[in-house]
């Protein structure tokens, strides 16, 4: 009995020091959240830096905004792609402006002051939130705008991730801005499964992101934001200041990627992974090679 | 087998109070048990007899008072060392189900660090002592045994380290009457063979009368009377004892007197039957009731005396003095 405990203890100690996602000391740890667009971005950041000869460790697929942000603050990762909207509302708990540039400036300033984290250049694509549905449902209920949806909601089932039910730029905010928006049922679904649920008819309306590829491939209808409720959100790498100091060339390298990513491009990359089932590593490499970044 | 001579036990002013109770479980009890005595603690449930027994091997620690075994205070050594020198048999037997009979019996020697060969030999010796064939029993598992067999193993286990004191707490309460009688006989036989001091707890008056050199009647934590069985029947100290022992019943006393002790010497009278000297006067009475006037008392097939009803009366009268 005692011997077993000792062996277990030493095994534990040995294993804990050599972590499961091991990064070599000095390697730049690149994180990402756990959906397609994030893993593609994370992979691209990694390959760009590797091309520059920097040591890189990948910690992609982290479980949510909180996990990623805490890991970044602790230094378990050195950078990850974050959206201005998410940063404003979930992390800083502030108010979003309609102007994308204003949002970017706000988060950049706040992150620098409060967390010693730097926002690099934002990509042009707008990953704002949206609500989408099938053409069939749209026709059946004669829906076009978010206002229409607000009134029709009691007959419809919504599929969303838990964050959506809490964020001010999500359901609570929609209810305040439009009235209504009381759905017959709200099903909490993993991001990766929501379009499947819509396809199977288990939900009628899905929370979408502007660059989701399924919008094109499944021919979905995105509700018109008639009150301009949702501001424009942009993505950028958020990096630790000490990492930037240690690797001054990092910022310039990643900033070369930003201008290349507009709505169509990002959606196309997402589609290759989600729709064509290609590996995100290959998709990233192909894109970067094409543009001479890797 | 070496005779393990008994050790004396001295109990002085022992008081035990249970935390939740308003009265004492053992109320200032003092008792001297001479070496080799078979002492029976007799009384109804709750009288404190079990509690008192368990202060001797420190399973219960008294609030005050001292206990000495073989002249040494039981607090002078660790509880484990003390208990390994004192045999302990309980009603539920408590044989370890996952060990063979042999391993059960040899457990105390194993704890004491005896070598394998010595333990094996001792286990065989003890199984024979309790009349269980070692060949057949040593590899059996407890659950394969009957209640009586289990308790024999329990007794063997208690004796393994040659204790000079043996504590038995209502050991035969869970077996049927026939088996109980056989086990009582075993106890007497072992006591004679080993000479250990035995403290035996029971609520069964007949059992007490059969086994005891001395009976201690307890009630409400106190000793009511301590006396040899015959004396107690002849001279009960309180009405309670009288009722408990059914002391007025003279026939009861017949069980306690051997034919050999009551017989008349001189062998020239006619007899109408024979009786072994070891048998009690109670059996003799049966013969008399069936028509015999005199019986020949026999020891190893030799007639050594005769017994008539007048001898019986004389023996009873003598006991009262």
């Amino acid at each position, binding site marked *: 009995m005692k011997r077993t405990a000792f062996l277990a203890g030493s095994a534990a100690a040995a294993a804990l020091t050599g972590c499961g996602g091991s990064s070599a000391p000095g390697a730049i740890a690149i994180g990402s959240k756990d959906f397609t667009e994030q*893993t593609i971005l994370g992979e691209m950041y990694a390959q760009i830096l590797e091309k520059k000869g920097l040591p890189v460790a990948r910690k992609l*697929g982290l479980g949510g905004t909180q996990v990623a942000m805490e890991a970044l603050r602790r230094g378990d*990762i050195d950078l990850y792609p974050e959206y201005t909207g998410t940063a404003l509302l979930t992390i800083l708990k502030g108010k979003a402006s309609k102007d994308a540039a204003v949002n970017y400036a706000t988060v950049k300033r706040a992150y620098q002051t409060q967390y010693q984290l730097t926002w690099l250049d934002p990509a042009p694509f707008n990953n704002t939130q949206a609500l989408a549905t099938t053409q069939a449902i749209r026709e059946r209920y004669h829906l076009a705008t978010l206002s229409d949806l607000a009134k029709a909601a009691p007959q419809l089932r919504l599929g969303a991730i838990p964050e959506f039910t809490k964020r001010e730029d999500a359901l609570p905010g929609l209810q305040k801005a439009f009235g209504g928006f009381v759905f017959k049922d709200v099903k909490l679904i993993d991001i990766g499964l929501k379009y499947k649920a819509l396809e199977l008819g288990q939900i009628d309306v899905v929370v979408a992101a502007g660059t989701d590829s399924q919008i094109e491939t499944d021919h979905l209808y995105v509700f018109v934001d008639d009150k301009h409720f949702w501001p424009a959100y942009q993505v950028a790498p958020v990096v630790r200041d000490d990492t930037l100091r240690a690797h001054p060339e990092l910022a310039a390298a990643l900033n070369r990627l930003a201008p290349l990513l507009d709505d169509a491009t990002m959606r196309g990359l997402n589609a290759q992974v989600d729709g064509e089932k290609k590996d995100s590593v290959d998709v990233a490499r192909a894109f970067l090679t094409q543009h001479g970044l890797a | 087998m070496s005779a393990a001579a008994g050790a004396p036990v001295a109990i002085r002013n022992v008081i035990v109070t249970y935390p939740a109770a308003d009265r004492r479980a053992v109320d200032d009890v003092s008792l001297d048990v001479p070496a080799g005595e078979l002492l029976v603690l007799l009384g109804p449930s709750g009288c404190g007899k079990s509690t008192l027994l368990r202060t001797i091997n420190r399973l219960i620690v008294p609030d005050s008072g001292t206990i000495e075994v073989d002249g040494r205070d039981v607090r002078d050594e660790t509880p*484990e060392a003390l208990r390994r020198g004192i045999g302990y048999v309980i009603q*539920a037997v408590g044989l370890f189900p996952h060990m063979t009979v042999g391993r059960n019996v040899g457990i105390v020697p194993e704890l004491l660090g005896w070598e394998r060969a010595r333990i094996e030999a001792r286990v065989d010796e003890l199984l024979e002592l309790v009349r269980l064939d070692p060949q057949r029993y040593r590899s059996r598992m407890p659950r394969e045994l009957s209640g009586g067999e289990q308790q024999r193993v329990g007794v063997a286990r208690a004796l393994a380290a040659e204790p000079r004191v043996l504590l038995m707490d209502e050991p035969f309460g869970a077996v049927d009457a026939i088996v109980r009688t056989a086990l009582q006989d075993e106890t007497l036989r072992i006591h004679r063979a080993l000479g250990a001091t035995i403290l035996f707890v029971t609520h069964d008056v007949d059992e007490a009368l059969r086994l005891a050199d001395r009976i201690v009647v307890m009630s409400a934590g106190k000793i009511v009377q301590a006396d040899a069985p015959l004396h107690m029947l002849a001279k009960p100290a309180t009405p309670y004892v009288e009722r408990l022992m059914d002391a007025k019943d003279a026939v009861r006393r017949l069980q306690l007197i051997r034919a050999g002790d009551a017989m008349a010497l001189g062998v020239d009278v006619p007899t109408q039957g024979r009786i072994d000297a070891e048998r009690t006067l109670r059996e003799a009475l049966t013969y008399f009731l069936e028509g015999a006037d005199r019986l020949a008392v026999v020891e190893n097939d030799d007639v050594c005396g005769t017994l008539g009803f007048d001898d019986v009366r004389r023996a009873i009268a003598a006991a009262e003095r």
Partner: protein
Amino acid sequence: MSYLLHHPDEVARRTLQHLEIVAIALSIAFVLALPLGVLAARNARVRGPLLGVLNAIYTLPSLAVFAFLVTYFGLGLVTTEIALVAYAQMVLVRNISVGLLGVPAALREAALGLGMTPLQAFLRVELPQALPVILSGVRLATVATISIATLAGKIDAGGLGALLFAGLDNDDPNRIFAGSAAAAALAIGADGALRGLERFAALRARG
């Protein structure tokens, strides 16, 4: 299915990683649970509150706990193990205490009365008797840990969860299948093996 066939080495690697995570968790959990279980068995006043606390921990949603712990312990194995060990306590402590309480009092009385120290009585008599129930708890805790350990994939600690969630995040049914099938196989295998052990212990305890 095709992922399993095309990348058996990757599946094997993740499976081994998963086993490692689970083995460490269970070892630490058991070492912690044993004294707690003994305490709960011996002390009636402690038992209720202790099991209540452990049960409350057990009902916390796992991903939330993982995310919360990342704040203090970061990504990786340490956080994973803390969460897994905490979750395993309820079942283990409960079964250890129930197992010990199920040992007839006469056995402990006899053991002590014969001169065993409390530790000897515990190791030689009570533990072998309580073992079947304890092993049942180990089995339940093992299967649960194999399952919860998939969440390690969301905090960069590897294991089959990494495979499973990579599949989920990228809508890749092949990887989803590979990850979940391997985890299921592990769970079923562990359950079967421990059931066998449990049966053996029960026979031995009975005699």
